[in-house]
């Protein structure tokens, strides 16, 4: 009952101060869009890193006539190893040809297949760093029949370092944007409270409880948050469409972004309006 009235009064509040509402909706939308955009970039960065991370492996070249089956089962016993894949020397040649997209001409300069057979060693997540790679590779080297191992240890750590820098940058930015969205909604509700001072006075006079008086303003804050979140989502979808035409392999979990935008809008709306109400609705 009083919720119905609160919503009705909330709509009245919005329409009475439409230009103020629209202006701050614009700002809210832009701020939430920035937030969404950063989430988008971050998510893709992590997605990309995950793919790279998955690709981190040790390649162990075998001596001729090595017993790859025995080696495989021994390597699998090493702590941190997830999987071992055998690549025969013929397979390696085929892969190379496929990669170079060349006919046999280039490779036919060799009389026999120059590529050694190898074991591709996939690692568990915890070992996918420079130290893990070094340790495991050291153990593998000790095994009879291994000629050489290669891995990109430094590069991996570099990548992780960049990721953590970007992550902390993201968090800082996130805080700034969250703060500004809340601030904008706070200001809007403050101005609406001032604009409706007479109404509030009369409400108090006729015995309205504080929560009843607060309801329309909270409602306005929430509406602003939801609409802002929705507009931000639409803008993000547009951005994603444009991005796809430049870069393939864009990761965009649309459902999460939709729910996330609206939820952020609602939460910031509630926080912003409650702060304003606490401060100005004595």
């Amino acid at each position, binding site marked *: *009952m*009083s919720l119905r009235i609160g919503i009705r009064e909330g709509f009245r509040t919005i329409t009475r101060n439409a230009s103020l509402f629209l202006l701050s909706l614009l700002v809210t939308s832009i701020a939430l869009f920035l937030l969404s955009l950063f989430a988008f970039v971050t998510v893709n960065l992590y997605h990309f890193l995950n793919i790279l991370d998955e690709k981190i492996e040790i390649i162990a070249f075998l001596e001729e006539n090595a017993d790859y089956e025995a080696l495989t089962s021994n390597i699998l016993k090493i702590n941190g190893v997830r999987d071992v894949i055998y690549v025969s020397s013929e397979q390696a040649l085929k892969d190379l040809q496929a990669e170079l997209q060349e006919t046999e001409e280039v490779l036919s300069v060799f009389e026999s297949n120059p590529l050694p057979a190898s074991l591709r060693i996939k690692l568990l997540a915890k070992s996918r760093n420079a130290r893990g790679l070094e340790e495991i590779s050291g153990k593998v080297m000790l095994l009879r029949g291994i000629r050489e191992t290669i891995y990109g240890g430094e590069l991996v750590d570099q990548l992780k370092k960049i990721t953590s820098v970007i992550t902390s940058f993201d968090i800082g930015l996130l805080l700034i944007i969250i703060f500004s969205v809340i601030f904008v909604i706070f200001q809007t509700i403050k101005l609406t409270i001032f604009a409706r001072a007479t109404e509030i006075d009369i409400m*108090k*006079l006729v015995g309205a409880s504080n929560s*009843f008086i607060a309801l329309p303003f909270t409602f306005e804050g929430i509406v602003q948050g939801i609409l802002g979140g929705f507009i931000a989502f639409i803008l993000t979808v547009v951005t994603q469409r444009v991005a796809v035409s430049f870069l393939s392999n864009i990761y965009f979990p649309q459902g999460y972004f939709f729910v996330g935008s609206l939820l952020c809008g609602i939460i910031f709306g509630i926080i912003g309006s409650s702060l304003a109400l606490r401060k100005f609705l004595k």
Partner: protein
Amino acid sequence: MITFDNVTKVYQKDWVALQDISFFIDKGEFVFVNGTTGAGKSTLLKLIYKDEEPTKGTIKVLDQNLRLLKKKNLPKLRRKIGVIFQDFKLLQDRTLEENIAFALDVTDTPARDMRKQMLEILTYLRLSHKKFSFPYQLSGGEQQKVAIARALVRDPYILLADEPTGNLDEKSSQEIIDVLLDINYKGTTVLMATHNLKLIKKVKKRMLRIEDGKLAADQ
């Protein structure tokens, strides 16, 4: 109904608005509060509906010591007290009907009761034919009646009127006083503040006279 016991009200900067005021108003009384502008009439009414706090002294309204009244219970007290003002305090963007319904909205009044109460009050004040009008389409007297309707629609025990005729011509003023007297006749305690002695001379009712914040006469 209303008791003031040595009440003093000092606004900031040591401005004494009311000093050592004591009186008792019984249920069903009609009382004028008279005094020149700035004497402290509005302050006295504000203390009754707890819009201001006394600096010293005790105020009891409807058997409640206002000093002990918790903030969250203030709305409940306000619902038992109707207040009207010189400037009507109507919402300009709402019709007469919406202005009155506003007072019922704040509590969970069931729609059916609400319609009944609205009908009663509109008929009583003869406003039915104007219920879709906006305040600016009404005369001053009519606007004040809407304010009275809003104060009355919830059957308050006490009606406080602060210079209700201050913006009205003589004829409308008389009409408003007659309405207030009738409301009182039906059992509501009424306090009306006015500086206009001429207007209330003919009415034989109790009068609290305030001069410079002190109770000068109670007759």
